């Protein structure tokens, strides 16, 4: 096992929190796991990988049946450090949060039993962003890990979760919340807002509007705890202790999203550490000589083909295939080889174009080569981690 630090690991090794961002489908979760494995393998640290919604195979790749709320140790033979993995459980995190910030158990009971709570705590997309950050802070505060790698949640927009604490705080302070809770507070004042409620009741039904009002009235009592925590979380994420790694693939749309992510991270003065280009093609395949050869074989090349075919034909007299059909077969194979090379070469050019679009120094771009098959074991995660190499 290689124990000297790779350059990406040394780049990350001063940090306590590493947030992995990027578009859906670029391999964020896998990259988070691979970085966690790399850190635990190459440094003596205790590492936690925190994910929102892992593919089942990924859990089993880490030797775990199912990821849960409780961190489980991942065995890595010969590692210098330790690796743990956990998944944020939306419902459980909401429950904990309500308990933590409620003034009394009666408030907890009322909030938790409201039908609105069920949908807020399990489906409210914006709340996923907040909960991810909240869960991160929770683990950080306990201080049991040296590094926490966070796989950011899939959201409408990769950047939403950066603003989650601020949005939560704004929501609590907003007129909106006062509006929503008016019917609960006073029937009299409510008359001023009649148009709003009339519309709401006609659309949604009055029972439902009552539930909403009730829910937010109780929910408001969590305000102080929430806001205090949201500020701490924001401070933590923007401190030197935390940094971002953005993941993309050699395609235009995910890279455009990565560029947006980078600009938003930079605009907020957060710490941008590196970009990882997944599904990169190995540089060593390509050379000018091979470019030319592929070109000759597929374009002008009857001469080259015929000459090669002759040579092959004479070289394998033991094959009981007629030279003519043999030549046909060989020429098809040679042309396909040239096509494969050129296809991958086009892909490589696309990759370079996408890398050049990223608004950060080339030295901060890491490539991770396309894997044969999928990530299926700790070994493949280690391989993936070692595979991440500086682009330039």
């Amino acid at each position, binding site marked *: 096992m290689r124990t000297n630090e790779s350059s990406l690991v040394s780049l990350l090794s001063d940090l306590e929190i590493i947030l992995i961002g990027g*578009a*859906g*489908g670029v391999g964020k979760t896998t990259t988070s796991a691979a970085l966690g494995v790399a850190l635990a393998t190459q440094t003596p640290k205790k590492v936690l990988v925190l994910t929102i919604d892992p*593919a*089942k195979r990924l859990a089993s790749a880490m030797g775990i049946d199912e990821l849960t709320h409780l961190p489980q140790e991942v065995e890595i033979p010969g590692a210098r450090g330790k690796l743990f993995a956990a998944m944020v459980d939306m419902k459980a995190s909401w429950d904990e949060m309500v308990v933590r910030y409620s003034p009394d158990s009666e408030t907890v009971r009322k909030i938790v039993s409201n*039908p*609105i709570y*069920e*949908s807020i705590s399990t489906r*409210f997309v914006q709340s996923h962003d907040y909960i991810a950050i909240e869960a991160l802070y929770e683990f950080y505060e306990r201080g049991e890990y040296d590094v926490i790698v966070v796989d950011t949640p899939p959201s409408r927009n990769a950047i939403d979760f950066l603003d989650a604490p601020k949005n939560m705080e704004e*929501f609590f302070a907003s*007129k*909106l919340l006062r*509006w*929503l809770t008016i019917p609960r507070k006073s029937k009299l004042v409510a008359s001023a807002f009649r148009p*709003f409620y009339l*519309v709401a*009741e*006609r*659309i*949604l*039904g*009055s*029972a*439902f509007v009552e539930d*909403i009002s009730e*829910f937010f009235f109780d929910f408001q009592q969590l305000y102080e705890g929430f806001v205090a925590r949201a500020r701490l979380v924001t401070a933590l994420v923007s401190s030197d202790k935390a940094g971002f790694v953005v993941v993309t*693939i050699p395609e*235009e*749309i995910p890279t455009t999203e990565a560029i947006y992510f980078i600009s938003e991270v930079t605009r907020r003065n957060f710490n941008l550490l590196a970009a990882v280009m997944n599904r990169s*093609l190995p540089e*060593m*395949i*390509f*050379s000018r*000589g*091979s470019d*030319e*050869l*592929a070109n000759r*074989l597929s374009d002008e090349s009857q001469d080259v083909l015929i000459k*090669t075919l002759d*040579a*092959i034909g004479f070289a*394998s007299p033991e094959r009981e295939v007629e030279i003519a059909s043999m030549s046909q*077969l060989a020429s098809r*194979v040679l042309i*396909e*080889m*040239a096509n*494969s*090379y050129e*296809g*991958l*070469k086009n892909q490589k*050019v*696309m990759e370079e174009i996408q890398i050049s679009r990223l608004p950060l120094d080339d030295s901060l771009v890491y490539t991770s080569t*396309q894997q*044969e098959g*999928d990530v299926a074991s700790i070994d493949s995660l280690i391989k993936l981690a070692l595979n991440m190499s500086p682009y330039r």
Partner: protein
Amino acid sequence: MNDLTRFNNELEEVLSKRLIFVTGKGGVGKTTIATALALLAVQKGKKVLLCEVEPKGEIGRYFGVKRVGFEPIEVQKGLYVMEMDTERALSEYLRIYLRVPIPTRVGPLAKAFDFVSNAAPGVREILVVGKLCYDVRQSNYDIVIADSSATGHVVSQLASPQGVNELFGVGLVKDQTKWMIDILKDPDQSGICLVSTAEETPVEEAVELAQRIRSETQVRLTLGVINKIIPKIFSDTEEVFFTDMSHGSLRDTLERELGGAVKGLLDATLLWESLARSNQENVTKFKDALGESISMIEVPMVPGVSVGIGLVREVAETIEVELA
């Protein structure tokens, strides 16, 4: 299942529906597939509405339109595109059903709505589905194609009329759900097109999504698309011959004739073949999970191209051939 007596081919059958939801994991090419289907429908002389449910401006870019909004724009003859906006859908709804004139964007109400619709089960979802169903019911278009939300979200959307119907005691929303359900559960009118790439995670998610669509919604899964497949290039005989070239008796001859540069070609071909093999396994997994009653389209990847109307047209041609 496929009632081919009424149609010349599977493509006609698919495009005979009034409402198609295109869904799948992020990054698999939902927008490309939805747009390709729309182009094919236009080719058949249909009036088409193509809706980007989670607007990223992608479809606008295909047709060189800077700003696509909630109001459909005709980007070419017979093809109208729009971007979903739940706030606007709500005001349209209020205008039509309550005759409450509401300006398109009133600050606090919009914000209130934004939050409530996020919090309240099914409100945002039903507005999305409701808007699309409404255009079907009014026969504003021959076919409505929705470039829908990714995995998970789409189930809540499609299940929302039923859910809301059960959850809301009374109210206008409840009354409105019945006709939506009628449209959605009629397999002649509505269908889902499930898109995946031939990679493990998207296929896994697609298979899971197919199960949820079948158990939690009333909308029929009509079409499966495996996008960006790396195709296998060799027949078995060719494969044997290639192995002789790459690892066997012909390697030396090959290097002598073509020079050391041939190694690049051999490596590229080996990599291509290994990717194609794992792609093929995932294609099989996807097909097995969806079953034979569903039309299946395999779209090969175009190396070096990931976006643009050129790609969409190429994909449209593939679909036409595959469903012929």
